[in-house]
């Protein structure tokens, strides 16, 4: 049983023109077995939240806490966070030329598991997981994400989820750029991982369509750098009906 506690989190994006406040007091607790959907308009700070949790160097936490089973995540390096059990499936996975997917996956699994997986088991394991995601075996020898389509990148993010077995998974707009079939394949893989592992999921999305495949226990509306409303699945239905208008107004009263 794990938990990720986010307490009054404030964070800035670091740019050459100076820092800009994005997160303005985020409070959220995610426990194993729970799926939290974070929904919000573009520019509301959803991705910043995911990057702040993962430790991206372009984002600076100015106050607040992130605790994984009581341990201060913010004091950990990026790789320590991953080894502690936090996983971020990125909206825009990065290309790493010249590093093969198989080398990358094995290096990551070795780091997270604390020892190199036995080769024979490893090959079988990777093959199986790739099969579930309809990833052709030739991708193993290609450079990490290089020349992959948007959908191929997202499948590989979920492949990494399945292989690295985190306690807390943050899925940042995993659904964007996926066609209907790919969305189903990726969602099935996430659901299977949820069913067979103790994991808490933070599902960041702009659209409600992924929630038809991955059912959330909680839905949070994110606007103006914090959670402005929380509820159950019915909140997502309401968002589908009415959009984010009322929240963007609430978050940016200056514009009214």
């Amino acid at each position, binding site marked *: 049983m794990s938990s990720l506690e986010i307490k009054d989190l404030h964070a800035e994006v670091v740019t050459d023109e100076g820092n800009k406040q994005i997160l303005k007091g985020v409070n959220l607790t995610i426990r194993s077995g729970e799926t939290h959907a974070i929904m919000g308009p573009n520019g509301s700070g959803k991705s910043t939240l995911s990057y702040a949790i993962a430790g991206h160097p372009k984002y600076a936490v100015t106050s607040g806490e992130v605790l994984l089973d009581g341990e201060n995540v913010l004091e950990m390096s990026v*790789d320590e*966070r991953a080894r502690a059990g936090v996983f971020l499936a990125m909206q825009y996975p*990065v*290309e790493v030329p*010249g590093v093969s997917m198989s*080398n990358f996956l094995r*290096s*990551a699994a070795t*780091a997270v598991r604390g020892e190199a997986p036995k080769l024979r088991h490893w090959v079988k394991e990777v093959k199986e997981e790739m099969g579930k995601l309809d990833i052709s075996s030739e991708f193993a020898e290609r450079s990490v994400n290089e020349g992959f389509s948007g959908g191929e990148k997202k499948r590989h993010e979920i492949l990494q989820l399945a292989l690295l077995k985190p306690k807390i998974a943050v899925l940042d707009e995993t659904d964007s750029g996926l066609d209907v079939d790919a969305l189903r394949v990726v969602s099935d893989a996430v659901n299977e991982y949820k069913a067979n592992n103790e994991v808490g999921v933070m599902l960041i999305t702009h659209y409600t369509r992924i929630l038809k495949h991955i059912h959330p226990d909680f839905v949070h509306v994110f606007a103006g750098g914090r959670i402005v409303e929380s509820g159950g699945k019915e909140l997502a239905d309401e968002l589908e009906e009415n959009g984010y208008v009322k929240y963007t107004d609430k978050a940016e009263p200056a514009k009214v």
Partner: protein
Amino acid sequence: MTVTNDAARTAEAAEATIPAASRAERFASYDVEAFEVPGGREENWRFTPMKRLRGLHDGSAAASGEVKVDADAAPEVRVENVARDDERLGEAGVPSDRIAAQAYSAFDSATLVTVPKDTVASAPSLIRLTGPGEGKTAYGHVQVRAEAFAQATVVLDHVGSGTYADNVEFVIGDGAQLTVLSVQDWADDAVHVSEQHLRLGRDARLKHVVVTLGGDLVRVSPTATFAGPGGDVEMLGVHFADAGQHQEHRLFVDHAVPHCKSNVLYKGALQGDGAHSVWIGDVLIRAAAEATETFELNRNLVLTEGARADSVPNLEIETGEITGAGHASATGRFDDEQLFYLQSRGIAEEQARRLVVRGFFHEILMKIDVPEVRERLEAAIEAELQAVGA
């Protein structure tokens, strides 16, 4: 049709400068006195720290030592020491700068490596050249001859200390296939200025690989010319500059006959204060060189602050009847996004940096088909990365 493309991109945004004149008009002579003493503002010297040349360029560096040559050649390959008046010397090209002419005027004897006609060498031939020693100066001359339809791999391995200028000739006969590697793995004090003349016969193929790792100042200028149609030259380079090192590679591919191919790929990494690399890639397609196919690419990876890479591709095309021509150059800092991505999967920073740098060189290392050299190069890259605790 004349198209001139010129671009200079450096990590510190140096100004792009248009070359003073076409490469077609570049002066060449065996006679050192035919060249003026360069002051450092000339197009082909403007990136070179002249003071660190130790007088190689102005006639003040008298020979005070010798380069020791050790050969471990394939049984089919002949290695000789020949006098400077041997009529085979000078066949591949004429010195095109004052230091090359100085070296041509000053060497005592030359090393001649011959792969006889129709012969396929059964193993790579290793020629080790050891510098004259700290504080000493030497001039040298090496010629590698692959006679018609011969096939071989030759490694020129430069190690040791001192100041050294030389001409290296590669004479590739009709239909011959030669792979050569020039490895500059000098000690920290060494200064090495080398003009390399690549002369390809009809339907000849040459893979020319330059690997520069050590030395205080290393300047290698390979010039490729074609004696007949159907020639195919691949020029590859790997360089890794540390604090204070100057590594300069000046390439010129002169397409003067039809149906020839050239493909250039140089990749360099730099780290530490004052590390400086220069890459010049001149390609000239003369009016007669119809159906030419050429591409050149230079990539530099700047790993730390204070290092600087200058990269100037230059393509001149005097005929529209070509198959293809292109060039690209890019210099980038270490990509923090790549580092973040790898680390976010649990991979520690040090290992992540190594993966990225190894990945950067991977494409070119795979083309170095002499396992001993490739392994040594991989080890050297690892050692370079260890040195800064990257």
